[in-house]
């Protein structure tokens, strides 16, 4: 199972964290510090797997972001690399040539997408098209609700004028 997902920038700034195992707030901070130190200092030619605290951390660098996933000792590292790639491709499809800035300003959307790909530390959907479809549907729902709310407030404010 995937214990947590971590997205860190080259400068060590956290862009996204998702915890599937119980870690207290303090522990989380510690883990982030440790892993940042461990992963950011690795050279480019080294392999993408690191052993850490008896678990394995699989990371992949896309442009200026490191996507890290911590898996159990028994899990398949190559599969985890695939899952990371799967997620990144979906993000790319959604944002259209995704870059780090997209993820900074729309972190909530990145979380929504992650929640459609992983659940309880396991993969839930292998089809990128399905995920895209679902996210689009939810986005439409939110848009409609917002429009409705806006129009309602307009009507009320008009009425109360």
């Amino acid at each position, binding site marked *: 199972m995937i214990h947590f997902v971590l997205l860190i920038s080259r400068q060590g700034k956290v862009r996204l964290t998702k915890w599937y195992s119980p870690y207290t707030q303090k522990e989380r901070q510690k883990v982030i510090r440790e892993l940042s130190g461990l992963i950011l200092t690795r050279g480019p030619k080294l*392999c993408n797997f690191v052993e850490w605290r008896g678990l394995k951390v699989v990371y992949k660098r896309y442009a200026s972001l490191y996507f890290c996933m911590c898996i159990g000792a028994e899990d398949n590292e*190559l*599969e985890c690399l695939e899952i990371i790639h*799967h997620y990144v491709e979906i993000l790319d499809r959604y944002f259209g040539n995704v870059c780090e800035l997209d993820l900074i300003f729309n972190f909530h959307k990145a*979380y*929504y997408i992650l929640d459609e790909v992983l659940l*309880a530390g396991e993969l839930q*959907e292998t089809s990128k098209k399905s995920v895209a479809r679902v996210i689009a549907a*939810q986005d439409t729902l*939110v848009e409609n609700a917002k429009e409705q709310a806006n129009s309602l407030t307009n009507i009320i404010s008009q009425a109360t004028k």
Partner: protein
Amino acid sequence: MACKLREFVQRVRACKTAAEEREVIAKESAAIRTAFKDDNPKRHRNLLKLMFMHMLGYPTHFGQMECVKLIAGNSFPEKKIGYLGFMLLLDEKQELLMLVTNSIKNDFNNANQFIVGVALCAFANLCSAEMASDLAAEVSKLLQHSNPYVRKKAALCCVKIVRKVPDFGESLLRPAITLLSDKHHGVLISAIKLCIVLCQTNSTLLEQMRKETSNLVEILKNLLTSEYRAEYDCSGISDPLLQIEILRLLRLLGKADADSSDIMSDVLAQVMTNTDARKVPGSAILYECVQTVVHIEATKGLRVLAINVLGHFLSNNDNNIRYVALNMLVKIVALDLQAIQRHRSIVMECLKDADLSIKKRALDLVYALATEDNVKALTKELLEFLMNSSRDLKQDLTMKICSVIQKFASSKLWYIQNMIHLISEAGEFVKSDSLYMLIVIISNTPKLHGYTVRLLYNMVGKWKNQESFALIAIWCIGEYGEMLVNHAGELEIEDPMTITEHEVLDTLEDIAAKSKESINIRVFLLVALLKLSSRYDTCTERIKDMIENYKHSSTLEVQQRAVEFSAIILKYSSIRKVLADRIPALNETVYESKRADGAVAALGPTVRVASPPLFSENHITAPTICTKLSSTDSVNLLDLSIDKEASGQTLDGFSMLQDLLNMDTRSSSKSSPYTGISDIDKNFTEDSKEHPSTSFGNEQFLEMYSAQGPMFPSIVALQTNRLKVLFNFSKPTNNPEITMIHATYLNCSSDLCTDLMLQAAVPKFLLLKLDPASGNILLPNANGTITQCLTVTNTLHGQKPLMMRIRVTCKVNGQEIVEQAQVENFPSGV
């Protein structure tokens, strides 16, 4: 004042310093807090801002109640943000979770699939054990929801429930199995995950799940042979992630079960042969497949196929794939050594990889692959690799090379050569036991003394500051120095070289000059110089001068030795030769026992293990102890248990040492060099913490240079026309109960005496141990002696003196002669 999320993020990013950022955040925090208090309708926007602050690491606990309120709201967007905030700002341990349980339950029954989805998501990511028990029933109902979107999420929620509360597994088995026939890939993968977790937690469920094996095989086959579907295609492979999960479940089902393994072997072979390994998805599938094959009851053909797959991985350009292959190979090396041997050369290539973790794994694998046949080539490659490797790898590598050499050494020559090379490269990492082992072996092979010392002499020229190597070299040069100049014992493989004595002394001076900080080297050097002073007659003056240099050393040890040794050279030249004589071969039995274990264990001082030695030439069995003598004796003599020693060793010069010790016990003025040396042994134990590579089992040295403690006069134990037996005493340890008796036999008659054997009996309160005698042929007219060591432990020391009855049997002119005597004149205090 509420601003949009985008503005807020921009403002924070525009801050140039940390202090500025803190200010902006604090202001916004305050604004949000008031907004929450005032029940501002823009709650969701504020919460998003709060989440952003949380990601930056600022405290945000005041937003937790807001999450709860948002979740309880009615509209989808609010719920969505509420749940997101909930998952982000809280963790499992919080009590607020309870407040949300009801909302979640209601949301499970909502008509909108996305609301159900979002609730399930929050539940799966954050539920505690209590929440799990509360809502388990609801979730399992959702497993049969009409919408696959909901079904798949529900399945994964069940995974979480089972992980938290394993007892729920039973009730979930049936629904899980039904889901396996679902067409939707997302549901399928979640269902498989659920089955995996169920199998892992409960073995009875595993049994029932086995019946589904053929179904799973069908699904996998379909995936492999299905046509191209853009939705699931990934580099030409149809839904690789699903294939991997199926393989994992098959692994669990096939473990220790021959029937299931049978059913799945076909499809496994198909996967392995048809999957394209060049890209990561294909490799991931193959890796999972190999793991499955290894864990189930696979046929030999399947296993060989799996190992070949791993072999192909090793030649892949991608680091990750090589890493994974090496990892796997190390784990299964026990399984099928032969098949892996084929890939040995590729593994050796991996040793040169840039990545440290790949190098380490390649090293482990190479070590595991070492066998009798390939050890010679392997050691050569490893030694070359050692020369170029980085420091952190050196230690591991050195220990591995060391144990390979020790385990598989087929000839002493090879052993000595390789150990010396190893020590000259990385002596600091070699354990002191191994260093001592080397000395033991060297001292036990007189044929190779010349070769060894010449090899060491040649290598001193290129030594790389390894202290242990210098120590060994100095010791050998001291011991066998004369062989350097007189070409003794030259082997065919050596190039003859002429070295003069002065050149040897030059080399020693060189070493001393290069290692000014090391006290051990100086100390060894002084002893070596003393030995050389008696072996090199022409250079006595020069050696004397060299020793004189150290008389003013600030280290007490060095100064003491220098003073004493120069005194010996000047004034006691008569006994100098004897003092500096060759050390007898050291005890090899301990080495043999360790070789039999193949492990590098710690050396015990007086452990004598009876295991068959491989290198020694003579076997001398110790005599068994004869028991009762005539019954008229008032002393009770019993059988005494004495270790039967099956191994022996060539003991050249042992008698010389005995003579040394004899002389030693008589005059105390000559005892000083020995006490000096024994002090140095103490020095070694103290230093051993800092210089682990240089402490040589000091107790062994104590035995060699025994003569500590009070000196006792020697006694004549037996004297007849034919035979004279002398006993010399020493107490090697601080324990007054243990006494070492050095027995010397002399043939006083004019006939040759053969098959000499001693038997001794002692009273009950004494424990006796006999060491093998140095020989069993006595030349007539006291032209030669035999010596033997006896160790007596007096459990009533101080209360009762030693007593012994000895019996010597020998053959003279074909006749059996027996002499016996009762020895009572032991000196007091023994």
